[in-house]
């Protein structure tokens, strides 16, 4: 089926900044609509000002264009529903760890504080060094067990 082929193509589109994880595994795909008019893809940006969005749009069009019957491909970024970090899939969480990035914590304390386990040794003995990492969606932490600095994907929820 065309839809499966398009999904397969989307699976090859990686986050330009974390090339082990696909945009599907990140939970960015909200809608895939195939009609006689063409293929319409709606994506949720992880962060609004993310400079990688245009690159992702281009890569999606390139990848889906490889599918023979796919024509008239449109990619739209929408804000509703909002992307939240619990949209990262189970496989996605594993892929992040492979890349050395702790997956977004599932629990946020009422004070807004959160903890992430070390992606290298699994230790919970970590401290938050800098809320803002190299990109908007990541923070920098330090593991007191294996003494490695590491990044974690920030938890983002509608409760914030």
């Amino acid at each position: 089926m065309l839809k499966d082929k398009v999904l397969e193509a989307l699976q090859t589109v990686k986050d330009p900044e974390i090339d082990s994880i696909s945009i599907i595994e990140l939970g960015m795909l909200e809608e895939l609509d195939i009609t006689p008019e063409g293929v319409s893809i709606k994506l949720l940006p992880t962060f609004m000002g993310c400079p990688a969005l245009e690159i992702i749009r281009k890569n999606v069009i390139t990848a889906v264009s490889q599918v023979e019957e796919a024509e008239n491909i449109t990619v739209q970024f929408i804000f509703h529903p909002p992307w939240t970090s619990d949209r990262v899939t189970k496989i996605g969480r594993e892929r992040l760890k492979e890349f050395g990035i702790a997956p977004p914590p599932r629990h946020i304390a009422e004070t807004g504080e959160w903890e992430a386990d070390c992606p290298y040794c699994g230790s919970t003995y970590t401290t938050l060094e800098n809320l803002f990492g190299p990109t908007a969606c990541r923070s920098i932490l330090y593991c007191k067990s294996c003494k490695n600095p590491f990044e974690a994907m920030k938890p983002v929820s509608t409760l914030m």
Partner: protein
Amino acid sequence: MTHTLVDALKDECYHNSAIELLFQLADDDFILSYRGSEWLGLAPHIEEDVAFSSISQDTMGHAAMFYQLLQDLGAGDADELAHVRSAGERKNAVLLEKVNGLGTYLAEPHYDWAFAVVRNYFYAQAKKIKIESLKNSSYQPLAEAAVKVSMELYYHLLHWKTWFTQLMDAGGEARTRMESAIKIVLDDLDGLFSLGNSGPELTKHSLIDSEDTLRAAWVNRMSPVFESVNFNIPEKFGMKNGNGRNGEHTVDLKSALDILGEVYNLDPAASW
């Protein structure tokens, strides 16, 4: 009553009010993001440089989204709305257009970090309160966007609050400089809550809460923080340099727009 884009396009009075509010929101984020970007390479340390530019990038993303909502309402092309409008057409609060300090980005910048911390913290809290109000806005596309902005803003607020309390608690020169920065910011703080001449219309259409409600919520949220750092805030805030919502601005905005315009006019098609 909830208004979709289609509803808003059918009701002229509502349409005008929605546009008015969106210009205020977009212009606020646009100019403060620009002032933030001027700090690049000048923040107290490398980690702060990374954090501040990340925040400015988020903020520019919010401005771009508000300009997009304006474009959807037929107010013009989003990029042009951001870059081509003159100072007199801008609706941002004057507090946000003020220069970062003496000197310019290129020539001998002597920027004031205390002022940056206070301005950004007070603004982030005011924006958070507005955004929470906007989650219940009658204009559905704005209410939806507010949910997304709120999540990112949460981290900005946390960041600036940490700086604020640490510098206030540090005593000595830090405390003195923070207190003078607070004085300067309070002199124009009311401009953040102002909804301009059309304020009553905006509230009547349930687009956003009234100025008084927004201001009271800010005071309510900030009071415990001020208390924790032993600082008394005055009962009243000022709008010393004019009300930006009504197009009143300082020379600082004009010179910022001239620089931004120069860059934009080099290549209007470039993506920003």
